[in-house]
């Protein structure tokens, strides 16, 4: 169990360097559901902070997009796990995501104005890149239920759009 979670975690943060670990260890559907849902929830929380703190229209609009989309996707995920009678299972990858988000949140809370905007958007670029990499190389290939796999693939399309949108806004802030 410890090995599996460690491999999942390694894959999530060092996607390109851990192909062997991916092949050997893969998360279960209840764990994948938990990771995907957690990743969405954390981005919603970051978005709420940005909506509250930022005065930059582009940044606030972007944050509202994140809040709206991730809430919609997470609702789909909840409906699906209910339908499939799957109970999402907490795991080390979800815990690591939550821990990293908490640290980022503490960092952002201390910033203001343009410094906040820049830090928030740059983190959004990095975060979506990470999560998209994990979806592509680990979560989607590991999902055994076809409907879960399909939802993750839809999510990946949406989140790639988010990453490009974040990169665009980051470019404007420079």
């Amino acid at each position: 169990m410890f090995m599996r979670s460690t491999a999942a975690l390694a894959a999530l943060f060092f996607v390109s360097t851990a192909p062997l670990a991916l092949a050997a260890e893969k998360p279960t559907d209840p764990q994948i559901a938990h990771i995907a849902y957690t990743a969405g929830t954390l981005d919603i929380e970051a978005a709420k902070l940005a909506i509250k703190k930022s005065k930059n229209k582009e940044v606030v609009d972007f944050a509202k997009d994140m809040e709206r989309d991730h809430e919609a996707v997470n609702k789909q995920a909840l409906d699906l796990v209910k339908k499939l009678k799957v109970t999402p299972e907490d795991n080390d990858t979800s815990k690591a995501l939550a821990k990293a988000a908490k640290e980022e949140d503490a960092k952002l809370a201390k910033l203001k104005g343009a410094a906040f905007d820049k830090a928030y958007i740059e983190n959004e670029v990095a975060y979506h890149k990470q999560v998209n990499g994990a979806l592509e190389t680990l979560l989607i290939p590991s999902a055994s239920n076809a409907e879960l796999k399909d939802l993750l693939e839809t999510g990946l399309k949406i989140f790639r759009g988010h990453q490009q949108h974040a990169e665009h806004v980051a470019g404007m802030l420079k």
Partner: protein
Amino acid sequence: MLTLALALIASPAFAATIEITIDRLVFSPANIQAKVGDTIEWTNKDVIAHTATVKGGWDVMIPAKSKGKVTLKAAGTADYFCRFHPNMKGHVEVAP
């Protein structure tokens, strides 16, 4: 006289509705040709909301799993995009 005759032949008896589907953040077809008076109707198959927006022009909300439409009032070409997902792009050519 000739122009008038051609115009009469070319004008449709009724305005048309042009259907565009949105699936996984893609407008399909992305390029369409229409005439003034035609209606464009977008069907959004995604679980997230989109818009079809022209800078300084129309701004159509297309909720998740729902539809949105616009009736074309002026001739010309228009590039539209989704305000929520600016990478989503479409193009309309509107003939008089």
